[in-house]
């Protein structure tokens, strides 16, 4: 078996493994907005070679060109990134569902800090084009997890939001792995490096 095919199979296996997490997101799937690309239920997508139930469930068909496989993999990366962004947004909505006037200044600070780090993570998700970004993503996901555990222990009024935050943080870590896999395979947007 050619070396490239072996790498391709390994990368797809790791991507599919990373995408196995169950989601009960109530946020409207952003893929529904894509023209000709209806929303996919990622939990039900069956990866059969050559089928196309959405980028998440995609496996290369026999004889599919490398270019086509790469295009699908990049779209899977984009889908995963925006799925993570939607989950993070759900956590933000849960945080904002608390009534600010009943929160203490410290609680409001914890809430605002969480939203701030969620913003940073969302921004990094949408610009996941190189290794340094992937590293930042992991660092900020760690910071968010830290705030989430603090929230669970100390901030009673914000406990309801912590479940959403935990779910988002887990998905962010998995998406970071998908980005890493795409990056090491050279399957990232072939952007020309920034102006010197």
């Amino acid at each position, binding site marked *: 078996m050619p070396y490239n095919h072996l790498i391709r199979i390994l990368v797809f296996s790791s991507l599919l493994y990373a995408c196995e997490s169950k989601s009960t997101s109530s*946020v409207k799937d952003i893929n529904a907005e894509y023209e000709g690309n209806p929303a996919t239920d990622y939990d039900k997508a069956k990866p059969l070679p050559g089928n196309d139930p959405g980028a998440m469930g995609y496996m290369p068909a026999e004889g599919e060109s490398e270019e086509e496989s790469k295009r699908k993999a990049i779209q899977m990366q984009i889908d995963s990134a925006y799925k993570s962004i939607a989950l993070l947004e759900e956590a933000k909505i849960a945080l904002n569902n608390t009534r600010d006037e009943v929160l203490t200044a410290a609680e409001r*600070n914890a809430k605002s800090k969480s939203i701030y780090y969620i913003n940073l993570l969302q921004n990094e998700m949408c610009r996941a084009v190189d290794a340094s970004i992937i590293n930042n993503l992991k660092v900020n996901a760690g910071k968010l997890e830290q705030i989430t555990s603090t929230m669970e222990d100390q901030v009673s009024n914000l406990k309801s939001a912590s479940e959403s935050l935990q779910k988002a943080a887990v998905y962010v870590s998995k998406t970071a792995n998908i980005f890493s896999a795409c990056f090491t395979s050279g399957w990232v947007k072939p952007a020309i490096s920034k102006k010197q």
Partner: protein
Amino acid sequence: MSRVLFLWIVITGSISCTVIKPNQVSIAENYATVLKGVSTVPENIYFRMYSLKAQSEQAQLSGLISTTGSANEALQFLDESFNDRIAFLNLIDSMTESYGLVKDYADLLMALVNDSYLAKFMSQKSSWQLSFEKLTSKYFLTTGKYKGAYTPASVGASGLVGNLLQEIGSTKIKSLQKKYLQQAIATSTPIIKSICQSFIDFDLPRLKADYAAMPSFLRENFKDFLGNINAYEKQAGNNPFHYYKDYIPVYHYMQYQYYEAGLLLTRMETCMKDLMASFDDFLYCFDHDIKRKDLPEAITRLNDSFSALTRLLSNLDAIHNKYNKMF
């Protein structure tokens, strides 16, 4: 005698084959105008989207700073937030630099179309050359790095450009057209086509996903900002209404910018898809000297969508001014 006649027919025949006709110049001008027009739009859209995100984060940041008790922590957030904005600017550069190459090719083609474009090109020949060489080398580096990602760019392009630049200024435009116009279109098209395809495959899904996620992003950041104002004002015994009313235009302005970005994204998507569908027709029309009134439907459709895009771009300021007068 018959041999001389045959030679004369061959010579005149070959001359007539290489002479560029007015229809061909018109097609080349149409092609270059569209390329130049669309090349700056991706940067415009990315900037609008990320600027909108940054504005909404600025409002949220002020809520965060007001609730932190530590000046050191406040400064840490301010620094991180600044770096995040710079990262947005760098991202826009890196995502859209390849479209600069489309613009440079379009400028070169325009210079071969008529004397006024040529004179303009001459005045900026050195800066064009620097930009083109830098972008081309980066492009080759990137496409080499991501093997198989793009249609390989023709190496003949560099030779063509070098020769053309040497002759520009000393050779008449008709001679330049005869020698280089067909070659310039043929060698640049595969690169331009692959850059435009990357807009559809990679930029468009990102931009559309960002666009779909934007309303909630703006709303939730603003909610956090308003929540902090509400709590502070109530604690101080003030009615938050007096403060909220000052921030309503801020939120509405963000919504307005979102509306503008959506108009631009929709027009650009249509235009880029029409352009992708027209490349082969442009080459065919150029090679076969097709008259303007007989242009294929794909090119007519592209010209319509390009016109809608440029009309929107030129009207954005006017719409903006009208919006501001509503308050």
